[in-house]
């Protein structure tokens, strides 16, 4: 689907959550980042139409919202694969083998960090310190932390994702 044709169709609970967020601040604009999170959690990414929706909701110029989404790394301006793997390669993780794991993942998935597999299933990203250095190496898989990683654990994570995808396709 082209981005321009994207229609925002948010779940009612997302809209309710955004309304509730606005009430937490003396000015609606302060709810911007939490609201963008709610919208992205719902849609899986941040298409332009979604940013426009948030801008209108908070009464902000659209360009204010674009400026914020482009500043923060967690807002996904490109539609990611069904699953997002974010591997930390900052110092503590790299000391424990994170660079080798990143290369291993690239090889297994046949992509470079920052890319999505051809079947649109998996996006791999290299990220900065995740605040979990004592259990390095660390990777976020669809919002969940996975710690003390080894190639074996990475294999298990990948086959688990495959099972989940099969399950959802069958059922």
């Amino acid at each position, binding site marked *: 689907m082209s981005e321009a044709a994207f229609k925002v169709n948010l779940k009612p609970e997302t809209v309710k959550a955004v309304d509730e967020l606005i009430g937490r601040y*003396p000015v609606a604009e302060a709810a911007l*980042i939490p609201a963008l999170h709610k919208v992205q959690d719902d849609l899986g990414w941040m298409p332009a139409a979604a940013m426009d929706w948030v801008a209108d909701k908070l009464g902000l110029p659209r360009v204010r919202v674009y400026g914020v989404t482009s500043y923060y790394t967690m807002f996904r301006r490109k539609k990611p694969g069904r699953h997002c793997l974010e591997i930390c390669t900052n110092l503590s993780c*790299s*000391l424990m*083998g994170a660079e080798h794991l990143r290369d291993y993942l690239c090889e297994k998935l046949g992509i470079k960090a920052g890319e999505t597999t051809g079947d649109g299933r998996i996006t791999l990203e290299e990220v900065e*310190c995740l*605040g979990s250095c*004592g*259990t390095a190496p660390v990777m976020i898989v669809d919002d969940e932390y996975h710690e003390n990683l080894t190639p074996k654990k990475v294999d298990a994570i990948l086959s688990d994702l495959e099972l989940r995808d099969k399950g959802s396709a069958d059922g």
Partner: protein
Amino acid sequence: MAEKVLTARFEKLGSHRLESYERDHGYKALKQALSMKPEEVVELVKASGLRGRGGAGFPAGVKWGFVPKESEQPKYLCVNADEGEPGTFKDRYIMVLDPHAVIEGSIIACYAFGAHAAYIYVRGEFKKPQRRMESALLEARRAGYLGKNILGSGFDVDIWVHPGAGSYICGEETALIESNEGKRGMPRLKPPFPAIVGLFGGPTVVNNVETLAYVPHVINRGPEWFIGLGSEKNGGTKLFGVSGHVKKPGLYELPMGTPLREIIYAVCGGIRGDKKLKAVIPGGSSTPVLKPDQIDVNMDFDSLAGIGSMFGSGGIIVMDETTCMVRAAARLAKFYAHESCGQCTPCREGTPWIAKILSRIEGGHGREGDLELILDICDNIQGNTVCPAGDACAMPVRAFILQFRTEFEEHIEKKKCPIGRFPAPW
């Protein structure tokens, strides 16, 4: 075994629930504080000398005392739970395992300097800590610790979680305030300091999670007890996060002033594979690296400053003899280059140059004069930027070069890395 304070409840089943917290005398300190005058609470925390656990070590009571008593603008507390400094991983554990300690400390802080609202700025990636804080806040609200007229005291206060979205610089207090207001995380020029003009233009205190979690204990047990756990200027215990090449990495609560050697060799079991120690970053990636002959230092703010490094956030990164120092420095420089908010030229332009030159030295393409060039860039960054993030890159890079100069020179002379990549531990 030294006394555990912040981690004392960590291993209890359901430690994050209000019921469990109350069973362990939770919210007793709040009741005590509400029976005192706000300025008495400030004085008590001042007397303890409790220093900020976010990195700079500024005394919390003194900071609260800077907030004007009378203010036309509402005052705010921002709880710094951004935890972005590489090597640091402590606030996450407090939020997951003892969220009510953070809430109780935050309410007491609000009462002490007269704020009626607080935001807990939790880094965006920390979904579980966010959920834990949210449900603890809900429990506290239901129990009457938050909201209007809390515990019948006439004092109103509310607290919310505010998620970040992936930006290291938002840990810096003024960038955090900008981000809390819904803007890009660009640090503000100081003065005015947040205590005068902060969130939404009102007087604001920014305190770290660990600092605030300590507050109820200080109220319950008094300043003398707190000082007795450590020393006069460095009281209390501290959460140390040890990562890298030790046998037992992890989070440890130890008295302030515990010698670094003891932490590495006794607490963490020594270096993995009994290899030789090569270097230690004592307090998060921005703190200057130490050599093995410096590890008899006591881990407190003043002792580390005394040997030209910094105590920082308590994130200790240990590197053994298999570690290439150029590669380590290059990786950290890449991080700072990536995180620069871009508003000061020396930081925006200087940090990517440092990263680029270090990575070419590591790759065997270093040139004569490269080290002087990097040191010159460091000099041009340090002290010339809006926020301390420029220094946070310049200081550790300079320390890596000065402490391990021959290793850097060898890379340039031999036109290759004599050590290689960080080895895989499996």
